[in-house]
């Protein structure tokens, strides 16, 4: 049986932080093994939205939500669901590179270790495979025991991607992964996103509209907590239906 092409089905999602109404009833379907970009001005709720997809909002006090976030037809906010299992299946990379203050090797084996993988040969293989996928292997293969903090910002971010891939998630969430990086490092990360999208579903939040246009298959435009427009990237960028989307992507505000 062929898998349903829709991996995430989000329906009428509202989110509040305390009294603040951040997301106001969004509906979005995210397709499997495609790159979906979320764009919009600062404070529009796109980061809040992506953090709902693997329950990273659980740690924010006063977080409250209504509506359904269906992942493989199951509501991830269902009381029977273990958020830890969700995060194992849905990896995430953050805005600021956050390598652990350990060696490159230990950064990548942390996730597999938590899963109980202890055999050295197996771990070696995971480290190599993950670093190759994250386009970092050639730069660090001689120095796997060096501190991850000695890497450049762009390398650190690719290490964080490798670390997320090491537990073989089904989905990779990228929350403005390039906003702290220079253009060369950004190009490398964009290159690796196009590489890995054959294997993973990728959702990326970005401030950079050219980036969304370059890497994504689908694009959603958020404004003030509303998903104003969602569609194929080519359509959004050449022929937006909403006047506000057009204003934003042509740089009239934001």
């Amino acid at each position, binding site marked *: 049986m062929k898998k349903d092409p829709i991996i995430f089905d989000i329906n009428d999602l509202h989110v509040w932080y305390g009294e603040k109404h951040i997301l106001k009833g969004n509906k979005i379907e995210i397709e499997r093994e495609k790159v979906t970009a979320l764009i919009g001005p600062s404070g529009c709720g796109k980061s809040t939205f992506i953090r709902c997809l693997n329950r*990273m909002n659980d*740690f924010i006090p006063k977080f409250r939500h209504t509506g359904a976030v269906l992942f493989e037809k199951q509501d991830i906010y269902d009381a029977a669901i273990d958020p830890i299992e969700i*995060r194992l299946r849905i990896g995430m990379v953050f805005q600021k590179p*956050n390598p652990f203050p350990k060696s490159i090797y230990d950064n990548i084996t*942390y996730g597999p270790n938590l899963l109980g993988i202890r055999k050295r040969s197996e771990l070696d293989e995971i480290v190599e495979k993950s670093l190759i996928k994250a386009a970092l292997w050639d730069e660090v293969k001689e120095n796997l025991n060096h501190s991850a903090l000695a890497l450049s910002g762009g390398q650190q971010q690719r290490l964080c991607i490798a670390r997320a891939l090491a537990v073989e998630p089904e989905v990779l969430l990228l929350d403005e992964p390039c906003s702290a990086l220079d253009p060369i490092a950004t190009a490398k990360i964009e290159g690796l996103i196009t590489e890995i999208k054959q294997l993973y579903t990728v959702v990326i939040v970005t401030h950079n509209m050219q980036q969304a246009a370059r890497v994504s298959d689908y694009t959603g435009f958020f404004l003030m907590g509303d998903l104003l427009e969602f569609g194929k990237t080519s359509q959004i960028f050449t022929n937006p239906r909403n006047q506000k989307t057009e204003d934003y992507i042509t740089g009239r505000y934001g």
Partner: protein
Amino acid sequence: MAQTKNLTLQRQKWANRLFILCALAALLTALLALVILIGDIFVTGLPRLNLDFLTSYPSRKAHKAGILSALVGTLYMIGLTTLIAFPLGVGAAIHLEEFAKESRFGRIVEINIANLAGVPSIIYGLLGLQIFVRAFQFDRSLLSGAMTMALLILPIIIIASREALRAVPHSIREGSYALGASPWQTVYHQVLPIALPGMLTGTILALSRAIGEAAPLMMMGALTYIAFLPDGLFSPFTVLPIQIFNWVSRPQQDFSINAAAGIIVLLVMLISMNMIAILLRNKFQKRTV
């Protein structure tokens, strides 16, 4: 206009000089008092300080008296206090900082810990006397003393450990959670190793407070004349500050010389503990940056 500006500048320059002078005077006053104190002690005590002094038990004759039992008692007590206070303090800090939900109860606990850190040590002595010596019937033993001291420094350890935990960037915790780690795994594998140097430093500084305390132990009724070494948790004991206090209160001149020598030993212990704290901090700082 130009003249006014010039005048103001001149005045500011002088005010600035005056301020620096005042600050320097304050510093020198503080330092001077310390130098005189330490100088006096060293002049009096240093000639008395020799191997015999370190390896003799107390005696009625000043020139035969030594501090062996007090020195060993202090080392045992500090060791035991560490074993009790460090795990408790770190555990409490982890709970308050990482797991406790924000609540009225939590805030009350927080305020009270800060208050406890300011309670005079003699009050802890009363508490120790009533609970450990009498209620638990541990008597005036090493264990009672160490437990009292542990209570005394627990608030300081908790506060220092919480600060160390708070200094761990939130992004590290997020990174760990995003890889499917549980809260406990995140604390154990990522947060604790980063916070540990800060916790150790805080604990050592707290211990160096405990090492100089005589009041709570005297309140508890620790003995002063001990001519043997503690041979277990329930053994009677004495510590350096008590021995020093005892010698100082004797009328004979020779005993005050012994006291001065005892103070030097105590000072050396304190300085070495603070050095260890600094070394630890530097060592770990280099590793994490």
